[in-house]
């Protein structure tokens, strides 16, 4: 199966498509996605860092350049940011392809709270693959969506430390945190 990165050369940013491809191939191997055709399209006209997946053949991952950028050196590529961003989105692809996430709403229908629980689930797993993750950054993101309280922090811990959750279980942890805080 194939993995492709577009564009091959960049105008607005100093990114290396071969380097991105190597990182993607490594992560695809870790997450067992070798049987999928995947294309990674990078939008280099914006410094924002949004990512979006279109399922088909190939699976197309749209990524804005900010997701791979070193914020201390604008327009330069960051290896950790590239790894973390690709890791997060590829884990989401892996989840979406599994029956355990069949009930997950479409990306455009996810609430900000649902986005936060799924992101937490992804980065928690990434951190156990020897990929450097700033846990506090994601805790702050989770708190912003679930509240700054103990119930929210307990829910974060549970999701962060889990490897085999279904969408319904994720949603249930989130719902419980919100209910306890009220």
């Amino acid at each position: 199966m194939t993995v492709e990165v577009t564009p091959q050369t960049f105008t607005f940013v100093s990114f290396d498509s071969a380097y991105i491809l190597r990182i993607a191939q490594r992560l695809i191997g870790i997450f067992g996605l070798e049987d999928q055709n995947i294309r990674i399209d990078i939008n280099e006209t914006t410094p924002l860092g949004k990512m979006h997946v279109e399922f088909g053949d190939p699976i197309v991952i749209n990524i804005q350049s900010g997701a791979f950028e070193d914020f201390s050196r604008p327009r330069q590529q960051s290896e950790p940011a590239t790894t973390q961003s690709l890791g997060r989105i590829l884990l989401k692809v892996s989840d979406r392809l599994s029956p355990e996430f069949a009930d997950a709403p479409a990306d455009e229908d996810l609430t900000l709270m649902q986005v936060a629980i799924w992101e937490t689930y992804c980065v928690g797993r990434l951190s156990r693959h020897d990929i450097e993750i700033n846990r506090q950054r994601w805790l702050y993101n989770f708190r912003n969506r679930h509240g700054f309280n103990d119930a929210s922090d307990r829910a974060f811990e549970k999701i962060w430390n889990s490897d085999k959750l279904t969408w319904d279980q994720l949603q249930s942890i989130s719902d419980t945190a919100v209910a306890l805080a009220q």
Partner: protein
Amino acid sequence: MRKFLPVEDLARDERFNQITMNDRMADQRTAITTDSRPSRAANRIVPSRADASDAARGLMHGIFVGEIQALEGAGRTCWDFTTGSEAPFELKLDMARQCWDEARHVEISCKLSDWMGSEIGEYAENTVLFQAACSNDPVLRLAGVNRALEGLAIDVFTTMKEFGEVAGDQYLEFAEDWMLADEVTHVKMGSDWLRKITENDPERRKKALDFQSVVDKLFSYGGTRSESQESPIGLARRFRELAGFDDQEIDVIADLSLAALEERKAAVLEAQAALN
């Protein structure tokens, strides 16, 4: 000790990477959307934004490095000018008090960055703030730093305080509120000293206000700060009034900021047309 330190000689450790306004202007990408639909066009840093946490972390780091440069600027004003002949003792006393405030702000911003999950040096340090503090006339420094730079700080702190309030982050809300109160005092100091020193020198006052206008325009670059929801940072009219800005002065900054936003949007459209 050396007087009139150039921006290139600011002391920083290896965690920091400094960029200039030219570096920023060289980035042809833009976060400003040309989509006119309200849901797409709002860039204000509020918790309901999808990337709210990351946007707030970036702004917090900007505040942190801004506080360092404000400390350095006020400190230089205490040292660079001869007491009496070039700058009144009481003005230097105010600048010393401001240094005390800014040093506290650096510590608060550093702790808030930890709290939000950022690391020192994670974002580039734009040195434009200190550059505004390099004039060889103390009155121009008051205009550029205390009125333009600290005026921007009022807008930024108000945006962050409101972010904390809506998100339920009490640490952020209270810390920003306390720092905001200090910034209002700093702007007031600048306004008061500018009027006092140039009372009988209209030409010098005009020169200082022109310089402030230039700095305000620099800080409005790309429409980062304006009354439009398309700008990440709002213009805090009420707190600016408390700091000694009159309605006309605030209107001028509002117009300037909006013009910068429109200018940037036009440039984006042009760049996109060239691409297509």
